């Protein structure tokens, strides 16, 4: 079971390294959005609060441009049956979730580095709060966008629908992480954000459990 999940993850990773389907587009996307923000606000002094909101805007849209690939590419190339015949649906789900988790952490890492380099006013005072927002936010983001990618892959209009469907489901998460990022700039203690952490964590758990139960229905018709 676990080794099969790992095998699917490795397959996706290897395929990604060979084809660079998602990676290149993603990195360019991050660069483009950040420079867009820089152009649009040229010369303005932006507050830390505004910047922490914008950070998650960048992360959300980068995720939307890359995370649907795992399922959509299988569907487009017709390799779905290969996987359907090889293992249980839940194994596929967790393999893909793992891949998306790695991808989202990659995105987060890259975005934050680029952000810290370009946005002068973005000064994080309490790094533990900031880091836990990124990690738990990443977990939640990957979990919800994986199951929605699976839905999207079966629909006719794949590209446009993805952010439309993901955004409302992700909003509770995004509002919480934005709030946490603001707190981290204000220098709040980790203990103060306990409520936020609980929301983020339970969001992740709830979405993963629901996806695990529902994935069978999407995967096989």
């Amino acid at each position: 079971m676990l080794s099969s999940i790992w095998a699917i993850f490795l397959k996706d990773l290897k395929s990604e390294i060979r084809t660079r389907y998602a990676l290149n587009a993603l990195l360019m996307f991050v660069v483009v959005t950040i420079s867009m923000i820089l152009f649009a606000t040229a010369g303005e002094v932006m507050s830390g609060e505004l910047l922490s909101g914008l950070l998650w805007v960048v992360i959300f849209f980068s995720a939307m441009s890359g995370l649907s690939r795992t399922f959509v590419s299988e569907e487009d190339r017709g390799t779905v049956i290969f996987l359907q015949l090889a293992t249980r649906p839940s194994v596929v789900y967790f393999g893909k979730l793992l891949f998306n988790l790695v991808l989202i952490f990659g995105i987060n890492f890259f975005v934050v580095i680029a952000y810290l380099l370009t946005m002068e006013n973005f000064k994080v005072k309490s790094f533990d709060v900031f880091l836990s927002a990124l990690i738990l936010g990443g977990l939640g983001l990957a979990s919800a966008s994986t199951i929605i990618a699976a839905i999207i892959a079966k629909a006719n209009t794949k590209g446009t629908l993805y952010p439309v469907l993901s955004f409302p489901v992700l909003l509770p998460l995004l509002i919480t992480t934005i709030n946490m990022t603001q707190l981290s700039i204000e220098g709040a203690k980790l203990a103060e954000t306990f409520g936020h952490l609980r929301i983020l964590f339970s969001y992740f758990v709830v979405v993963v459990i629901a996806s695990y139960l529902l994935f069978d229905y999407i995967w096989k018709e």
Partner: protein
Amino acid sequence: MIWKFLLGVYIAIITILAFVIPIGFIPGLGERARIIFLHVPSAWLSVIAFFVAMIYAVRYLRSKNIYEDVKSAASAEIGFLFCFVTTVTGSIWAKFNWGSFWNWDPRETSIFVLLLIYGAYFVLRSAIEVEERKATLSAVYSIIAFVTVPFFIFIMPRIMPGLHPGSKGDPEGAGPVVTFKMDPNMRILFFASLLGFTLVYLWIFKLRSRMEILKIKIQNKIYQEV
């Protein structure tokens, strides 16, 4: 037919009472607290309607019976309608109580998200042509949406400070309206109104699903004849 007539009379009486019964003085809200008889029941109902939609979505996934999907969609539609009513009434009320139509209060955010989710749900439905696939995918989406909604409806408004009566940081005075420590008359009328709204919902729901089922049956018939 007779109970439908009675329901009409019942709703009329409740509406009249909602405007005329004495509700006692509630600091911070005053007479504007009367909105509770229309606004809160319709908010509740939209949640109930979405819940019913989810139940039918689960039933569809289990049985693969297309009628369950039709009912799920019907309930979601009505939920959307009530949600819209809640948003509009709430927004108008907010103009007079808080000074602007929209304040991004957590509860306003949550209803906005509900509208977005079910908006996306209908977009998804319209984007898929194959009926079974449409039913399955939209069922899964509505369940996923429903498990994330509680974060908004029940948790967020209580954690984040907001303006809405009953949220964290609300001045002590308006609390009774939501915690039901309100005037006994008011409480009875509130629950009576909730009941009336539920009956109206059930009626529309029945109509909507009967209509769609009949449509499917007729289409099947036409197809068979050709």
